[in-house]
């Protein structure tokens, strides 16, 4: 009996690492390290890792006068939403992590965040932008991607200002997952408000590789603009098939994802040229950061460590870890309710931009319009023009 009690005491000590004043603070996440979403999932794995290492290298976090290190517990959800949910339960019930970081993609974040809410453990996630995640009145879920509904907002504002004329008709092509459904719902409202008629409005299965029918439909009633939303592999196929079927918008085509990512340009080569896209983040010296110096130094350190350039997913992931660092220091405790309140109140400048959560727990960064020009991602428009766009984009056979 005594042996059992001793053993139980040992187990409970082992399972509650944060209980000791020197033990590292455990942040847990179930990520798409393998499976169809691994290509983007790696930004989160690598972003979390570099952020934790950098914060630890700078001395860690001060909690009630004690310096504490951060530690990561990452599980591979294999791009399976259901497995991800089980793994978040495992992280809390077996691995006893202190706080939760998010997975990639709105579908995953939508489901996984319910675990965080149920266990009342703060989750800061930078992979889910869908407004569905934030419309359920959850208190423990925070997001560092801007709301999906508004992704095309800055793009449309820019297009309305550009010569030769404001767009009158649009084709909207969005996937059927949580993120893209939010994008589609928000964009329909934006288009209606701008007085732009929707001539094609198609939803497609999230992982389809095939767009030729939708593209032929678009070609049969050429719109002024094509607005496309989905995951990066699908963006690539849509663009290639548009070229092979000779489908052009009268003015321009814009993609919610893909354009800022380095491997999108690598895979497409010169076909990626002049595509419009958006990102809440591009590396900049002006983005000052307590741990990395600034956005440029972060991008350089990231590329050197992992061998590929970071995009906004990675920066968003770093911001998630920094939110915990700031909030835990502010709370002066690891008590989850206090840290939750501290997260709701954070307001700091980071390599990702200003981090401050709204009432629903989501950040409100503007989407910067970018265009690929001479193989580079060029920032074009935020509140005003930053660089000159190539607009209207010439048809495929006139390039």
């Amino acid at each position, binding site marked *: 009996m005594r042996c059992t009690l001793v053993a139980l005491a040992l187990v409970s000590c082992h399972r509650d690492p944060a209980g000791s004043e020197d033990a590292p603070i455990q942040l847990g996440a179930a990520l798409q390290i393998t499976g169809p979403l691994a*290509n983007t999932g790696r930004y989160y794995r690598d972003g979390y890792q570099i952020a934790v290492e950098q914060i630890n290298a700078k001395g860690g976090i001060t909690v009630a006068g004690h310096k504490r290190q951060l530690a990561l517990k990452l599980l591979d959800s294999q791009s399976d939403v259901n497995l991800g949910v089980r793994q978040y339960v495992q992280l809390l019930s077996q691995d006893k992590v202190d706080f939760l970081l998010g997975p990639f993609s709105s579908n995953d974040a939508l489901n996984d965040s319910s675990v965080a809410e149920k266990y009342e453990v703060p989750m800061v996630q930078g992979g889910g932008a869908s407004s569905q995640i934030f419309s359920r009145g959850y208190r423990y879920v925070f997001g560092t991607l801007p709301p999906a509904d508004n992704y095309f907002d800055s793009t449309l504002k820019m297009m309305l200002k550009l010569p030769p004329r404001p767009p009158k008709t649009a084709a909207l092509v969005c996937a059927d997952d949580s993120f893209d459904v939010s994008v589609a719902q928000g964009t329909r409202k934006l288009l209606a408000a701008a007085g732009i008629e929707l001539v094609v409005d198609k939803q497609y299965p999230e992982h*389809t590789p*095939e767009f030729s029918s939708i593209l032929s439909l678009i070609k049969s009633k050429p719109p002024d603009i094509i607005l496309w939303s989905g995951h990066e592999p699908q963006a690539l196929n849509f663009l290639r098939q548009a070229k092979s079927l000779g489908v052009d918008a009268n003015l321009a085509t814009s993609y919610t994802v893909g354009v800022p990512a380095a491997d999108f340009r690598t895979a497409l080569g010169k076909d990626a040229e002049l595509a419009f896209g958006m990102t809440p983040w591009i590396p900049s010296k002006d983005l000052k950061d307590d741990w990395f110096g600034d956005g440029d130094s972060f991008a350089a350190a990231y590329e050197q460590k992992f061998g590929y350039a970071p995009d906004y997913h990675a920066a968003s992931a770093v911001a998630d870890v920094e939110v915990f660092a700031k909030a835990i220091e502010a709370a002066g405790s690891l008590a989850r309710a206090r840290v939750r309140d501290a997260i709701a109140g954070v307001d700091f400048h980071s390599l990702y931009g200003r981090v401050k959560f709204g009432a629903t727990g989501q950040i409100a960064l503007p989407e910067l319009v970018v265009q690929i020009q001479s193989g580079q991602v060029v920032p074009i428009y935020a509140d005003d023009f930053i660089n000159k766009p190539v607009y209207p984009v010439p048809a495929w056979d006139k390039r």
Partner: protein
Amino acid sequence: MHLAAQILLNGILLGGLYGLMALGMGLVWGVLNIVNLAHGAFIMLGGYAVYYCYAGLGIDPFAALPIAMVGLFCLGYLVQRFVLSLIARAALLSTLLVTFGIDVVLTYLALFAFSADFRTINPSYAGDHFDLGGLTVPLAQLGAFATALVLAGGLRMFLARTRTGRAIRATAQNLTAARLHGINPRRIYPLSFGIGTALAGAAGGLYGVVSQVTPYMGNTLTAKSFVIAILGGLDRPLGVIAGGVALGIAEATTDIYLDPTYRNAIGFGMLVGILVLRPTRLFERA
């Protein structure tokens, strides 16, 4: 009307490639009685073989297809000879488990070797097209369709006209009678499996030209191949291509006239339809 014709053309061109994907699966199923769940993984490996021939060595993807096919033939031959031969004539469940295992191993080895980056095989003509009576004909898709027809025709000739081809068909039709006539299944099985994986390799290369190559592309392609092999019949190469075209047309028209999100439901609905109308189809052999 014009749109309908274009949708039909898109479906036919895509369907040819679908048919080629299913060709190897149908052959292996018919001869070895194995539903090869790793078929999509072999398609994926073919995609990478052609990608590296093109991106690394500068070989045109269509010219690289034979290289990928030889490589995949050798791999398939060895896999049958040393792995699948251990479960020859075993229960269906064992073959499913083993080929599923091979699929997982190949997929994760590919992730390890090639990373999760998606690759496109993007020669200068990949985005070209020409007009034919007001219809847009994409060149690469047309090339893929033509290659599928040539390979299916070649397979048909091989099975019908050559001694080895007839031995393969005999093995599929009646193993005992074939053995009594001096055919050695130990020789025929790896050969058939190798031909199946070689065809998968060609399909993978073409798929990379019109779409993209990732370590995870295999699963959906295995499912599609399964449907098409049943639609087309296991033993008729041109029938399999026709099955692919039927699925391609069904998907393309679903996208426009129903809703793209019903695409998979239509594919598997066709499968269910076939099995209801001709329930023996699953077990028909050459």
